[in-house]
């Protein structure tokens, strides 16, 4: 039977592909940023799925998971810590992209990359 982790990983991969395709084909800057953030979410899902193990629970010790059982009942906390960081930085990156898009729009009154011709070769 397919495991939870594999299914989530497949969904994450599909999400990355959708975002990738979108970022390549869209012409509107804001739409490209949306596609980028989709791919970002996909990467997070894949990373968390890598850390998941069947039949285990969250790495937080409380009444439900005593310290003695930690080794056998807890999933891998390292990918979670990584993804947590990645999400926060993702927001910083998105905010930067949005600020630049806004700036470009103020200058050129357009968000269409086909009309931004200065750097075209």
């Amino acid at each position: 039977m397919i495991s939870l982790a594999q299914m989530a990983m497949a969904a994450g991969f599909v999400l990355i592909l959708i975002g990738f395709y979108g970022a390549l084909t869209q012409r509107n800057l804001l739409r490209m940023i949306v596609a980028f953030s989709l791919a970002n979410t996909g990467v997070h899902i894949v990373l968390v799925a890598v850390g998941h193990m069947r039949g285990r629970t969250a790495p937080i010790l409380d009444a439900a998971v005593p310290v003695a059982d930690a080794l056998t009942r807890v999933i891998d906390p390292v990918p979670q810590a990584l993804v947590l960081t990645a999400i926060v930085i993702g927001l910083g990156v998105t905010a930067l992209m949005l600020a630049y898009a806004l700036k470009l729009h103020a200058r050129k009154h357009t968000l269409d990359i086909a009309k931004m011709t200065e750097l075209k070769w």
Partner: protein
Amino acid sequence: MVDLLIYLAAALTGLALLLALYRFVKGPSTADRVIAFDVLTIIGITAIALLALLEGRGIYLDVALVYALLSFLGVIVIARYLERGL
């Protein structure tokens, strides 16, 4: 007996999610999608609470609390955008 009822509740919640998703995809206006989004968030809160029950981890409820806040803020931001007040 109780297990069976929980199964039934989860199935009904899933069905509600699908219905709201239909409205989200169909539209037709942005406001319709916003209300579908709101309903999806509220269904999400129920789903999280159910998940906490199934896994027996009370700490998951904190996430539901954050959701309750988000469903409200999200709708207000978009409504203000729609009425050109942002």
